[in-house]
């Protein structure tokens, strides 16, 4: 049964992929798209030219610089940089104003800082148990804050507006950073499988957050919090009973919300037939469907589409805009890239030696995957629209910075895994070979 393990094979198994070809394809994509956009509408625009120079530099700096400090997952980093590039390219092509892509680029840079902070955080604080209660309290305060100092935007009262001189200079959506905090708090609660009470406390905490979100009419965040909590609970405890009760309770709550709240009924009605009110409530869904259809398989060409007819073309409906500009094939590949990110995240979780890290990783990728499915499903009329945005692509600072911070946690955990694998190899080399089963 026992056989000697080849040290050379072990060494090869600890090597981390560094696909330079993929990096160069990404850089070529950025340069070619931006150079093309510099001459859009028959006139020269210097902003895309600036992006054509800056984006490859930032990409190289991130993809080469971060792994030089910590042994993080380079492929994950490259994929997220590709999504960010698609975001800036699409916004440069479709936005009404040149400030939109510039603002998004600034948010991406801030997000990269949040990513570095996430890596440092997860590597420095190995025990999160003592942070659990403060994290829960901060999350609750943040989610409830729009009730006190917030305002309503697009039907949901989940925004905080920072005003100066009578005009809004910044709008923040607190439910976005709370997503990451919720995952960390739940992972701390579910980490100890023996402590069932603690696990149920975690579920109860998420339920309180969901009630606050329902009161704020933030349906997208509510669905995401609920599904992530239940899936994380099931993965952590394998407790079919509570998970089933949770899902049945959630479904019953959804039915109750349908009969209790007008805005839920309207969303469902528009989803079933947007033509009942084509001028007002069904307008954006109809325009999105037309955009996806007119794009066809290969798209209308960068800068040649008319996605500006869709309200919220830059945030909630950016996937429809991508379908129109780049085509359905590109859009499907984009979904494939999200799937690869989720798979890599699950793989990082499986390789981590601590339950807490595994749960954090699973929570983050599940939340990201679900959010992608919710918004893409909403854009293509597969499910009712819930008002979440496409991670790393849609315009918006709260979402971008929060998800970049979450990516930092993922990368930090991947670097801890890589260091553990290196230690294994060193130990085996010192022993002069090991025997496995």
């Amino acid at each position, binding site marked *: *049964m026992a056989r000697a393990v080849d040290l050379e094979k072990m060494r090869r198994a600890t090597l981390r992929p560094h696909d330079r070809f993929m990096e160069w394809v990404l850089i070529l994509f950025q340069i070619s798209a931006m150079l*093309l956009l510099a001459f859009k509408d*028959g006139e020269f625009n210097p902003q895309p030219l600036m992006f054509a120079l800056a984006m490859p530099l930032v990409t190289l700096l991130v993809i080469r610089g971060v792994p030089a400090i910590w042994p993080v997952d380079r492929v994950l980093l490259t994929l997220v940089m590709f999504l960010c590039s698609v975001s800036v390219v699409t916004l440069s092509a479709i936005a009404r104003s040149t400030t939109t892509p510039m603002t998004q680029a600034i948010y991406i840079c801030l997000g990269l800082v949040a990513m570095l902070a996430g890596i440092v955080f997860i590597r420095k604080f190995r025990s999160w148990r003592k942070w659990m209660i403060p994290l829960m309290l901060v999350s609750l305060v943040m989610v409830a804050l729009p009730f006190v100092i917030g305002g309503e935007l697009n039907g949901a009262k989940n925004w905080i507006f920072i005003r100066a001189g009578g005009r809004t200079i910044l709008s923040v959506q607190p439910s976005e950073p709370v997503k990451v905090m919720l995952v960390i708090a739940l992972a701390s609660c579910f980490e100890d499988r023996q402590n069932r009470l603690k696990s149920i406390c975690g579920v109860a905490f998420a339920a309180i957050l969901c009630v606050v979100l329902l009161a704020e009419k933030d349906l997208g965040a509510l669905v995401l919090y609920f599904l992530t909590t239940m899936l994380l609970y099931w993965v952590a405890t394998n407790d079919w009973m509570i998970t089933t009760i949770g899902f049945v309770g959630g479904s019953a709550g959804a039915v109750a919300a349908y009969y209790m709240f007008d805005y839920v009924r309207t969303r469902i009605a528009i989803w079933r037939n947007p033509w009942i009110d084509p001028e007002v409530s069904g307008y954006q869904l109809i325009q999105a469907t037309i955009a996806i259809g007119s794009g066809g398989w290969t798209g209308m060409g960068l800068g040649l589409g008319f996605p500006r007819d869709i309200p919220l073309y830059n945030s909630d409906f950016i996937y429809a805009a991508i379908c129109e500009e780049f085509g359905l094939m590109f859009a499907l*590949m984009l979904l494939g890239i999200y799937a690869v990110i989720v798979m890599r995240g699950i793989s990082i979780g499986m390789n981590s030696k601590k339950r807490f890290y595994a749960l954090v990783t699973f929570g983050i990728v599940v939340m990201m995957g679900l959010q992608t499915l919710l918004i893409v499903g909403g854009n293509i009329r597969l499910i009712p629209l819930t008002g979440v945005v496409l991670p790393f692509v849609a315009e918006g600072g709260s979402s971008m910075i929060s998800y970049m911070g979450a990516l930092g946690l993922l990368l930090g955990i991947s670097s801890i895994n890589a260091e553990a694998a290196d230690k*294994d190899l060193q130990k085996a080399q010192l022993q002069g070979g090991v025997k496995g089963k």
Partner: protein
Amino acid sequence: MSSETYELLALTARYWFIIAAGLILVRSWWAGVRDNRNAQYRRSWRGGSGYIGEMVVTGDHGKRGKSSLKGARFPVPQGGMLGSGKMADMRIRHSDVRGRHVWMEFSDGMLRLTPVGKHKISSPRLPDGTYVMKNGDRLIIGGLQMALTLYEPQEPLQNKRGRMVRGAKTEQDFDDEDFWE
């Protein structure tokens, strides 16, 4: 650049964008496949950084006709599922071991075991009924007998009355009078 030229370039560039996205997707997917293969191989090591020790099969009285597992060593993770199923963290293919048989968790120098459902195991127990294993203890699952060998064995922390203290991480925690009074 005229609008016609731009249109021509944009229509041509669509194919390049699709190819670029396709290349990135395929390469990243392939990198994931290779990574998982390497990770599977790494998980089969008995290295010390992630695993706390190993279970050595000391006796196998399973079904006839099957090759005996006697002498085989299985690395024990810090926490995870012992079972014969594909998803088990510590996979032992044996007729008496269920797909998901026992949940294991290492804390305070002891490996705590929680059987899944009504699956049966035999190992030392605490007064509260929890199954625990220290260095050298035996675990019996049907006809399979295993002994636990910890890489860095340590005595479980005990208070003055000789009872094991749950949650004590360090000697300092343990010495704190309030902790165990």
